């Protein structure tokens, strides 16, 4: 495990292809032992960022330190600390699950006995024992992902990059993948996660950064991000029309246009605002039947932060 406080640190990271600027001065700080999620629409530069952080691609400018090492000057030191699971499962189709794991163990020079013991353990951990002797070509999407992640764990990386690890998985496989990721972090590993599923980032990530047009447009915890977009409101339901009208008068909000007995009170989602609403209802002696606080979810945040007229179909990553 790295003793460095930040598993990833970038300052002014820049990359362009010809005239097209893909990363335009990105500053990232990922504390060791946490899950950090990078979100962004297609073409935002997520995969380019991952490729630079994992030594696959050279940055045009900026400082990039991964596991305490400069990626440009000490790529081998970086490679010793990291492991990568890309968008497409990086398994050898012609080899069995067992052989795939041994291949990676041999490349890490683990030694025969240690490699076999680890492969056996990983097959059990990832529920692949029955498929151990089957060629990866015959695996289902979920099995390939699991084998891919199992291969990624060989060598005991302190920092794991997961580039859309659950794309194309059914809900059960996704939840089991999430549990695996949580277990890894509990063991001290740092996870850098890119995902299309905002629910996944919400569920897993300690911190989230939103990348759009090559720039970070927001960074923080899921809750911090949600508070940045308008859209929080308190929803009140009343027993009858009289209470509804009294409530609307007390709170100075318009009556609903439909027959519903509910009022929507715009609000910042904080406790103080909630108390004010309840106090006003009390002062007017109006009783509400039910109260719910609606806060925006990450989808709202994402759409608000990465607003654009149209997202081109099939845009490049």
């Amino acid at each position: 495990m790295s003793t460095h406080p930040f598993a990833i640190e970038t300052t002014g990271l820049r990359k362009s292809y010809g005239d097209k600027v893909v990363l335009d001065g990105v500053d990232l700080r990922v504390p060791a032992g946490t899950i950090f999620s990078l979100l962004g629409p297609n073409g935002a530069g997520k995969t380019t960022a991952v490729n630079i952080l994992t030594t696959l691609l050279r940055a045009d400018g900026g400082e990039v330190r991964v596991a305490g090492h400069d990626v440009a000057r000490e790529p081998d030191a970086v490679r010793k600390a990291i492991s990568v699971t890309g968008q497409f499962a990086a398994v050898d189709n012609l080899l069995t699950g067992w052989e795939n794991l041994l291949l990676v163990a041999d490349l890490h020079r683990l030694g025969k006995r240690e490699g076999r013991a680890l492969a056996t353990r990983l097959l059990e951990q990832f529920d692949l024992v029955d498929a151990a002797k089957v060629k990866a070509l015959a695996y289902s999407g979920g099995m390939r992902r699991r084998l891919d992640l199992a291969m990624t764990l060989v060598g005991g990386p302190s920092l794991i990059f997961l580039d859309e690890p659950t794309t194309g998985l059914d809900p059960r496989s996704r939840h089991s993948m999430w549990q695996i990721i949580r277990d890894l972090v509990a063991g001290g590993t740092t996870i850098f996660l890119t995902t299309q599923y905002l629910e996944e980032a919400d569920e897993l990530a300690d911190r989230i950064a939103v990348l759009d047009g090559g720039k970070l447009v927001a960074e923080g915890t899921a809750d911090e991000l949600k508070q940045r977009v308008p859209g929080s409101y308190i929803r009140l339901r009343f027993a009858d029309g009289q209470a509804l009208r009294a409530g609307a008068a007390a709170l100075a909000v318009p009556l609903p246009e439909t027959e519903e007995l509910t009022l929507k009170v715009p609000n910042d989602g904080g406790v103080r605002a909630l108390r004010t609403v309840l106090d006003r209802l009390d002062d007017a002696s109006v009783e509400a039947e039910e109260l719910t606080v609606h806060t925006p979810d990450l989808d709202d945040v994402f759409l608000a932060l990465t607003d654009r007229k149209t997202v081109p179909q099939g845009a490049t990553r």
Partner: protein
Amino acid sequence: MSALALSTSNSATMLRRSLLHGVRYPLMLVSGLLTPVILLLLFVYILGGALGATMPDGRMGYLNYIAPSMVLLTVCYGGGATAVTVSVDMTEGIINRFRTMPISRASLLIGHVIGGVLRTMVSVLLVLAVALLMGFRPSATPVEWVATLGVLTMLAFALTWLTVALGASAKSPAGANTAILPIQLLPLVSSAFVPTDSMPGVIRWIAEYQPFTPVIDTVRGLLIGSPIGNSALIAAIWCVGITVVSFFWARAGFNRDA
């Protein structure tokens, strides 16, 4: 851990992977083997009567002339499988796994090259066996046999590097399969099937100055005792040249950006 020890260990692992691919996907070996064998049967039993008419022993005389050529063609066809497997590695996700691991960067290429040469030489031995069964009677001494296998290995090494380079630069496995076509067709315009002095002007010039003619003349000379002259030297120069150029080309293709 020294860099050499790391490189040797990683290369051995990659070689094992390459050989396992050959076992798992025997079609690769068969397709490289089938074409030379079919051509051998075709040339000897269908065209051999006509082509061998001017030769001392007729059809069997032509078999002796063409068997060494078919062995050479086997080396050319052996590269097909290599180009495709390298291209599959480069275009599917696994290359990025290897590139982000703390392993010797050359090991993947070395594994493919040694694996490819070994696969090709197995095919060569099988085609030689078929030719011998058909009645091919080489006059080679044990030393000449060793020299023959040496020349063929040298050619296999050069062409495997070339096919690795083509595979590493191709955009898709299908593209890699097309890119190697010239390697498989060029031997047809050489002294492999008929002596070059029977060809018209320009073609004869191409046939005489292309790399496969000196190689085939050397192999034929060693096996059936026809004159070699300076063919062996020219063949060696060609092989070394192709190897060196292909080595740098393959390395550049392998190191291109993700």
